Structure formats: C-alpha cells, structure tokens
C-alpha cells in the first residue's frame, strides 16, 4: 500500500502472498459479487450557492444548496464541479463524493490538491458553483440484518457517513475503521463514531489511534461482517477488497479514477473490471462505478492493458504499428 492518502499510485502492491484475481487454481471461491445497479434518478446540472464552508482537519467541508441533487442522491454517489470561474483555463470538472445530504443541501469534503481542487476548497458562502449530480452508482444496501463493516481512508471516510447512518436506521450492526497518514488527514471521525461500534481509528504515523494501516483492524473485524464497504485511496481499496474476498465476505468499493467528464461520455476513467458475464472489460468508473463489487475490480492490473480484456486483441495492431509521434 502506498503512503499517499491522496492517491496517484496506480500499480497496486498487495501484501506479499495475497492475490486477488484470478483465483488460485483449486481454491474454492464464492461467486463474484453482482455489479452495482444504476442509480434511480438521473443527474441534473445547474448553478448552486455555497451556504457553508468550514475546515475539517486538513480538508474543507462545503455545504451547497441544491435541492434537486440533495433529494435524489444516495450514499456512494458523487458530484462534478466546474472550477475556476467563467474565464478559467481549466476545462474539466472535478469529481467529489457526496458526504451528506439534508434540507435541500448536500455537503462535500474537499482536499485541496492541485489548482482545481484548491479553487473549490476556497469557495466561500454566497459563492456560486456549477455542479452536476448526483452521479455514479450508489452503494447497494445489504439484506436485512447483515452486519456491515465500513472502511474509510483519508477524505474517503466522508463518503461513508451517509451510508453508516442509513444502515443504522435500517437496523444493521455497523463497525467502522477509519485511517489516514496522520491525524490531520483523518476525516469524519466523530460522525462515524456516532453510528459505528466497534469503531477503530488508525494513522500510519501513530499520531492518533492505532499506529499502522487500516488493514490490521480490518483483518480482525472482517470475519464478523456480512458486507464490507470501502472508500479511500486505490491501494487501500485493493487491500480491503482482498481481505474481504479471502474471507468470503462480499465487498463494495468506491474507486477514484482520473475523470474528464464524470458523466460517461469520454472513456478516460476506465479500469479493468470483471463483468456480469465473467469477462473483463475497461469499465467507466463514473457511470459503471464508482461503486464496484470489490472482487470484480482487477486492482493489480490498473494502469495496464491486460491481454484477456474484451477487445484487447484488436489493440495489438495499434501496438505493432507505432502511431504518429510515438517513439518506436
């Protein structure tokens, strides 16, 4: 797993010995989790007013007045913001998970990274933002009575708060593990502590909670869970999904891939996913995700072109012939 809570590492290194896919020959394996079903409501686009902004550890929580989004969003979905204002040189939207909804408003937790997310994190109450949402597929809910384990990394924990509340309201037992590189990059600790027990906090540097990665407490808690939900950096998702799959527990992960459009038209946000027919394809994380069954995502192959992908054979040609401008 990477040190980098804000993501960016593409090739996932799992703790040695662990393999996610394909299954070790001869090993008994549960059937794969179902693909997450699409959302019930289509997205809308419009200008919305920022009604609240507050620092949340290393991040900024924005609250935005947008009844049409707030009233239809489900946990696991995200929104996409235009950034930089009308004369911006930044054309692409920034995708941000919905952290909470209520009273016609929704909230997001923004980590100021490069220029676009920094612009977003510096919006103040009264400012207007152009936002599209709710986008993507929500976390599917488990059968009645299933105990759930929630695992959040960095600002990813924020996306689990709504889910935690919903599960508790429906009578599920909820456990949670929340981790980050250090105390400042922990997020939504109080909100998740209020709905989850046991509730474990980890930091890589031990600045608060248990020292180390989320994987240790997850390994301890997963056997007691009937379903695992995870949101955070890709290496964490890979590890958590791996632990769940190994124990035969279904898992749902909300992935984070670089997105140009957020609405499914550009094909930039793909990752290799095993489809309902058992064949792998490059699936769009914006419209076919961001929530995928944890055992369907081929984490180890992210950033590569696995030869068994549907249509990978047709690419050979392109690879044999150097395209204009590529080095031979």
């Amino acid at each position, binding site marked *: 797993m990477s040190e980098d809570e804000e993501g960016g590492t593409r090739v996932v290194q799992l703790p040695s010995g662990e393999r996610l896919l394909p299954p070790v020959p001869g090993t008994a394996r549960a059937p794969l989790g179902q693909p997450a079903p699409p959302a019930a409501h289509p997205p809308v686009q419009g200008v919305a007013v920022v009604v609240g902004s507050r620092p949340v550890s290393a991040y900024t929580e924005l609250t935005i007045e947008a009844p049409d989004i707030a009233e239809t969003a489900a946990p696991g979905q995200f929104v996409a913001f235009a950034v930089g204002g009308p004369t911006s040189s930044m054309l692409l939207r920034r995708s941000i998970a919905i952290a909470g909804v209520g009273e016609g408003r929704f909230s997001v937790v923004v980590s100021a990274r490069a220029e676009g997310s920094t612009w977003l994190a510096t919006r103040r109450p009264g400012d207007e933002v152009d936002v599209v949402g709710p986008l993507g597929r929500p976390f599917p809910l488990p059968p009645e009575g299933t105990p759930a384990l929630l695992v959040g990394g960095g600002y990813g924990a924020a996306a689990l708060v709504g889910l935690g509340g919903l599960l508790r309201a429906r009578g599920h037992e909820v456990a949670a593990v929340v981790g980050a590189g250090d105390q400042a990059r922990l997020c939504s600790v109080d909100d998740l502590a209020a709905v989850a027990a046991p509730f474990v906090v980890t930091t890589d540097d031990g600045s608060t909670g248990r020292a180390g990665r989320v994987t240790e407490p997850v390994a301890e808690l997963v056997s007691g869970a009937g379903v695992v939900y995870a949101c955070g950096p890709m290496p964490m998702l890979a590890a958590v999904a791996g632990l769940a799959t190994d124990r035969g527990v279904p898992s749902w992960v909300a992935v984070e891939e670089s997105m140009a*459009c957020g609405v499914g038209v550009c094909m930039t946000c793909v990752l290799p996913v095993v489809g309902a027919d058992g064949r792998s394809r490059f699936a769009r994380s914006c419209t076919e995700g961001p929530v995928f069954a944890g055992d369907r995502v081929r984490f180890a192959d992210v950033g590569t072109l696995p030869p068994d992908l549907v249509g990978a054979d*047709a690419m050979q040609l392109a690879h044999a012939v150097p395209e204009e401008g590529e080095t031979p």
Partner: protein
Amino acid sequence: MTTLPEVLPSVDMQASIGGVPVVSPVLTASGCSSFGRELDPFFDLTAIGAVVTKSVQLRPRSGRATPRMAETPSGMINSIGLQGPGIDGLLADELPWLAERGVRSFVSIAGARTEDFAELAARLRGAPGVLGIEVNISCPNVESRGEVFACNPDASAAVVAAVREAADPAHPVYAKLTPDVTDIVSVARACADAGANGLSMINTLLGLVIDPDTMRPVLGGVTGGLSGPAIRPVALRCVWQVHAALPNVPILGMGGIRTGLDALQFVLAGAGAVSVGTAVFNDPSAPARIHDELAEALGERGFGRLADAVGYAHRAPDEGPPGRHA
C-alpha cells in the same frame, strides 16, 4: 433536463449535412458524447442536428491503458485508443436506442486499412436513424507503416472513394481531417475529388504532456490528441483555408467550440454545421445551449437564416456591413 430559452423566431436554423436537412447546425463531436445515451438527462437529443457517435471499428476494442488524459491550459490531451463495441455492438445496441427516440446519428467509422472502412460503410446500409457517415481518417494506416491516412492526400482519397462506393447512396460521407499537415487544402481537395460529400474539421492536434512527478509522458500512449478552446484558432484557420479554396464543399466545423459566439466564428469562416466536443465535458448540455446562443447571435446580427451566414467572413472588403438576410 435543461429547458431551452425561447429561440428568436426570426432565425431559420435549419442546416444541411451533405444535402440532408437537419433541425440544427449543432452536432456533438465523435468520441465526446459516446453514443448519446448519457447526455439524454441533460438536453433533448432530437433538438440538435445529430449525435456523432464514437468512431467504431470492425471489432470491439478495449482501448488503451490508463492514464488516458491530461488537462492542459484551456484544453486537454487524450489517448483513448478508440475503445468501443465494434460494428456489431453499434448495430445491435446503440443505433436502435437512438433511432427509437428519433435521434439522428452521424456514424463515425475508423479502420486500419481501406477495406475496413468500406466494410463498415456497407454494414451501415439500412441501419435505422443513420443520417450519414463521418470517416475518421486520422488513424494509422497499417499498410503504410502506420502513417495516418489523413496525412496523405492519396491515402485519404482511397478511403473516401471506397466508403462512398460501399455506403448507402442516401448517406452523405464526410471525411474528418487532421490539422497536423503542411497543406490541409490538398488533403481536403483530394477527399472532395474522391467523392466526399463534406469535410469534418478538425480532429485533435498531436500533443504531449510530461508528468513532473514521474518525469515521463503522462499518457500511456505517450502522445495524445489536443482538443478544447486552446486549438480553436487553428481549427478556424483550417475551415477558413478550405472554404476559401473549395467554397462549394460543405464543412462540419469543430475544435474548441464552447459558446454560440465560437460557433458563429466557424459559420462565418465557412462551416455549414458545427460539432461540440470537449466543451461537453465541461457542460453536458453545451450542444443545446450553443444552438440557442448561435440562434440569438445570428438574430442580433440581422441574419434571418443560418444559411446566409455560412462563409460570410470571406466577403470582399468593399461589401458593407450586414443587413437583414432573410
């Protein structure tokens, strides 16, 4: 769904794609609206000229490994690798969905050999709702050591002739040109002479971005296509040059169109219709908005019909300011 502000009743926005009338001169751009479905929540797909579908090849393609894009100043570069379902998937799943809803599709085809293009055009005969064919010749030609068809007038002409021959005669055939050539007029002329009913201009410019962290090219494919408002002046120059040289060849203009005034520039330079590409990523309802803004801009300038504005910027210096052209 965005409700459209009322269009000035005085401007007739009917346009033509190679002779086939369409209700709007604004289309999507290939590869920037997938097969149209995902934009359905954002605007009325039947109110634009057509959905230009993602370039399809004979076989399904996985596309390239990620990363597939990088944002650049007022633009982006991409290297998707033509991920798509292949012609069978297009005919089985995508075109029927569009046709059922009354959405016109302008089908973009791509191949690695001249015969691929011809076969694709033949397969589209009789397909429901197809307005015409856009031939994406900005692909490497395996038979010419991977040289891009559109970089060579002869290779371009060969593809166009084969497609025109194989295609349904009712389907206008547009050749989509790359700006990465020394003389775009010569390629345009070769395509027109080979039977193209129109020209789509421009495809992306070849570009590269290096990741300052990895210190290697960002894209898995090393180079990629630059698009967005950054390239608009280059696109306008290409449209201008080709319209000046071949005033009777219809042009579908594109490259960085984000507003109605941008679209107006393309129309004035000689484009009879326009495609909106990268701007859709910023604003998924851009095609409908741009239609309305263009109608308003034409009306404000005294044009009664879109058709009267096509190529208007080429008028001689002594031709005065525009009156009402109804």
